[in-house]
């Protein structure tokens, strides 16, 4: 295939996943999908290798979804798959690292042959159990565990499974709606892919996929070959809910000859008793993202461009979660995974890396009864701190790196739940000083419009360990989390009184270079 033909077919494939993602986002019930874009769509070839992904969502979802397809199929008798079958799981080790994320995979048939799979992962509004937060003591407290199963069998819904799900979650209607959206986006992908094959006279996409993956892998290796061989070390320290300090250490080995990078997490903190443990697939997702976004962000993300990056995880490590460790708030550690890697890469490509930022978005969930006594459970919503500074540009304020999710607008939250914000504005000066200053965090306050006690679930981080500046840049400010003016360290789900007010300042990003 020449560079013209391949470009045409490929832009068609990307069009298909984009159509799928847009449809899914528009149709979704969960505000975090609709407003924050916390979703991933991917198209997989007949060997379950990711060929194309939609340009949405978070690295955690997308790169986990990349692995999920083969994990799901490894647990399925592929010869038994029929048109109309739809696979489902929320197994943390097989998909995106916690129960909230449900992955749906639909085989795409052309005639009687599977030529591809359409997959999606979205963060659902509830999955029963503990709810949002890191307070569960083992994984079984965290909610409903759906093993790899058929959600639809030849177009017929698996009623037993649907009934079990509905009975075990707090927001069955929203969850059913979102699952329906995922299934329907798979149907669209199947239709579109077959239309593409018709238009260009293809029997399948095997050759196309092979070509895309080979070229992506080759280009990634080329980018790595430009770096000096060697092992570079980086470490990042941050505190998580409850005050525990996590140390992530990486040894990044560049093998310029082979065009490969190996990231070894030896020396990092051990497993946590809190629900912040990260499954390997999610660690892999953010580790590969750090490399990809630094070396060549324009290259497409697929099985080929991910292949030259290897991850080594020690046993008994916070980023190598083992059953039955709780994993619910795994993003709080997962979103820090890129930083030690960036610090190692800073020794190799100083102009391409960014300084440490606020890391994970702070997530919040509220539950209770409104003034009229009607119960509510909010979806998870999140706020960013400041991003670290870049070599030639300041860090962005109220923007998270590495994730890409948006905040749910204040007015949407106030219209959906009995919450009233008292403030949400930038906390100027929280970004570190430097030749390029870090981005600022934000001050956010809220209370509930209710007459009865309510539950608060917040996942802050970096309340004591501020983001570091890079190359002489100043550190950003650490975050603040207060209830009625008092600093709070233990942030397990807590009972609140009607008049209680929550106030927080998200951390600022580190500066880059001495002033």
């Amino acid at each position, binding site marked *: 295939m020449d560079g013209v033909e391949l470009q045409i077919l490929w832009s068609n494939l990307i069009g298909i996943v984009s159509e799928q993602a847009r449809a899914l986002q528009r149709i979704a019930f969960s505000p975090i999908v609709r407003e924050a874009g916390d979703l991933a769509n991917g198209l997989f070839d007949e060997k379950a290798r990711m060929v194309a992904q939609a340009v949405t969502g978070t690295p955690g979802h997308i790169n986990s979804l990349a692995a999920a397809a083969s994990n799901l199929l490894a647990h399925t008798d592929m010869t038994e798959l029929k048109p109309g079958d739809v696979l489902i799981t929320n197994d943390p080790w097989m998909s995106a690292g916690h129960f909230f994320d449900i992955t749906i995979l639909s085989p795409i048939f052309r005639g009687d042959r599977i030529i591809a799979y359409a997959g999606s992962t979205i963060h659902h509004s509830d999955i029963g159990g503990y709810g949002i937060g890191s307070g569960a003591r083992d994984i079984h407290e965290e909610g409903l565990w759906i093993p790899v199963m058929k959600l639809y069998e030849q177009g017929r819904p698996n009623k037993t499974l649907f009934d079990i799900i509905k009975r075990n979650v707090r927001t069955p209607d929203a969850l059913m709606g979102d699952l329906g959206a995922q299934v329907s986006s798979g*149907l669209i992908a199947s239709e579109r892919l077959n239309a593409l094959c018709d238009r260009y006279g293809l029997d399948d996409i095997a050759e196309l996929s092979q070509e895309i993956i080979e*070229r992506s892998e080759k280009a990634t290796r080329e980018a790595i070959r430009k770096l000096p061989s060697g092992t570079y070390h980086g470490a990042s320290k941050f505190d998580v809910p409850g005050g525990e300090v996590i140390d992530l250490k990486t040894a990044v080995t560049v093998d310029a000859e082979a065009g490969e990078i190996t990231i070894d997490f030896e020396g990092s903190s051990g497993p946590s008793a809190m629900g912040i443990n990260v499954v390997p697939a999610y660690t892999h997702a953010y580790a590969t993202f750090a490399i990809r976004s630094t070396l060549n962000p324009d290259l497409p993300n697929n099985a080929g461009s991910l292949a030259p990056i290897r991850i080594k995880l020690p046993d008994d490590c916070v980023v190598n979660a083992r059953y039955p460790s709780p994993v619910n708030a795994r993003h709080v550690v997962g979103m820090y995974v890129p930083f030690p890697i960036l610090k190692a890469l800073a020794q190799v490509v100083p102009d391409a890396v960014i300084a440490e930022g606020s890391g994970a978005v702070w997530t919040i969930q509220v539950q209770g009864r409104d003034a009229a006594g009607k119960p509510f459970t909010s979806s998870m919503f999140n706020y960013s701190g400041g991003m670290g500074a870049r070599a030639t540009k300041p860090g962005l304020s109220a923007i998270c790196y590495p994730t890409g999710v948006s905040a749910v607008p*204040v007015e949407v939250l106030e219209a959906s739940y009995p919450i*009233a*914000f008292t403030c949400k504005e930038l906390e100027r000066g929280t970004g570190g000083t430097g030749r390029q200053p870090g981005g600022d965090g934000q001050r956010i306050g809220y209370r509930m419009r209710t007459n009865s006690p309510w539950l608060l679930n917040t996942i802050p981080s970096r309340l004591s360990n501020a983001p570091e500046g890079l190359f002489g840049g100043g550190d950003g400010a650490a975050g603040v989390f207060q209830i009625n003016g008092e600093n709070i360290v233990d942030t397990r789900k807590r009972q609140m009184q009607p008049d209680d007010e929550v106030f927080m300042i998200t951390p600022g990003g580190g500066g880059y270079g001495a002033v």
Partner: protein
Amino acid sequence: MTRYALAIDIGGTFTDAVLLASDGRSFVDKTLTTHNDLLEGFFRGVDLVLGKAGIGPADVDDVVVHATTIVTNALIERKGPPVALLLTEGFRDILYIREEHRYDMYDPQIEFAEPLVPAERTFTLRERAFADGSIGTPINRTEVLEVIAKCRAKGVVSVAVCFLNSYRNGANEEEVGRIFAEEAPDIYVSLSSVIAPQMREYPRASTVAINAYTVPMTRPYLSALIAELGNRGFVQQPLIMLSNGGVIGAERASSFPVRMIESGPAAGALVACHFSRIFGIPDLISFDMGGTTAKACMVQGHEPLVTSTFEVDRRYRFKPGSGMPITVPSIDMIEIGAGGGSIASVDDLGLLKIGPESAGSMPGPACYGRGGTHACVTDADVMLGILNPDRFLGGDMKLDAEAAGQAFDRLGAKLGLSRTQSAWGVFEVVCEQMAAATRTHATERGIDYRGLPLLAFGGAGPVHACMVANLTDSTKVIYPPLASVLSAFGTLVTPAQIDLVRSLVSPLADLDWDKVDVVLAAMVEEGGAALSEAGIPKADASFGYSVEMRYMGQQSEVRISLPDDVRKSRDTAAIHDLFEAEYHRQYGLKLAGMGIEMVNWLVTASGLQPDRPAAKQATSASVPNRSSRIVHIHGKPEEVQVYQRSAVTASDRIAGPAIIEERETTIFILKNWTATLHESGSIVADKTKGAL
């Protein structure tokens, strides 16, 4: 008695003038846009067409319509006077925080457009409305007076007000507006509850800030226009084209400049609607390709699709998310970074990419001979022989085919292809890019694009439309006459129209119809007043009602139009069914038993569809009616017949591959397509049945 209608469209480069006589004659001209004083070019264009027709200003007894890019230019140039933004205390950084969205996940170097109003001119007031519409804290007059003093000190001439939840209850914003009117009547005030009363604080603040920023420019501009037309003896008040595809009186438009932003492109889409009526084809795709971008719009039931959100001034690599959102009704167009000047390159994977970088007009494509060395889309068209380098713009601009050839030698070397093969690659890839974007755009809106005819215009549209049609499974392409001044013409086929929207969130089951009727009546009154200012008699005014709804818990709405009988009989069950039917059409599913909620109520007030004749193609300078040249198709040279558009007659059947030339553009008919002349003056290409 012949009546005359006049249209002037001021674009970034040219100001187009069209004078249309009721007997079907048309007089058109183009003159350079005069950026220092737009009215200079406006009246130069007016004089040219009046002169051609031999009539005076007083003879223009039908409408005078105006479309202009003044607002867009103001946003891009950022040379406007100081503007202030008033927000709720505690929420001063709405324009800085935006949606907290890193719109390109992989690129850590992204940037955002700088907010229109800087922090030092953003003021907050102690006030609060809640989501249920109740006012928690009313306005304190003293505080407003302090803000006015600060505005004075900073030389502020225009103020935007955006308070939290004002989409539900705008009382506090209105109070601020009243105090300003009393104490500082010389300062323009734009209220978000009037300009864009919809939920979501950031897009609403962005919209009202844009309005406040541009109103100090549009108000004097339109006042001067009204005065000058009067001085010259024109009898009609000018009408202004809005982004929603309607026209409205200049006086009213001057307070809502944010509604004028897409007025030129909107007029283009309206031409597509006009021809869809002439041809009796309700659904088609309008396809407008120019120098830097291509625009596509879906026409459904002879009407353009309308959206309530779009984005302007994308600052970083043309990426969605890097610009400023606007939430006012606008014709729903997709803009694709692919035009004649788009640059072709080979990426790290060895794949051919087009754009989004553009060579613009300086230096322009290599073939312009102005020092450009990149191979552009226009270079490919010249290289392939589709464009005649000696007859570009009727021969006014000679193109350098060899410079284009050399650019393709360089590009081809990277691809391992010859210069003609790589030029054909550019032709194919740019068409696929536009087709792919159109397919995604249609799918997002629940429209099956397959088989929809294309209506092609813009300098580069007719060159590429046949190929794009092949890729969207279309079997018909319409090439309307007057392609070079089509947007100006579009304003003349447009009824007066204003779209109004109010948020009123309520479950369908608990709908308070009395409240709804109050909201609708207020919108009808406002719309009726706007129409009356545009010279529409009461008897000719009509009102369309629609509502945006969703399943409870969703965050994205589906719009249904509300039949009069359903509205009057308050038939909630019928609304339920209409919603589910539309939801099913768009998403292929219904969610039985799920609650439904109403979010926004919309009223469209419109005048009659103008009954003006279709303008015929003007005849052009004499060139041989028929010739032939070599065109490289799929890398193979083929002898292709070349026709002059002005010489094509009703009896001609032009089988592709063929080329039809006119002054401003070239129609390229592919193999398996046949072109004929339609009585409207359009060229129509039909695909042979069954051909791939």
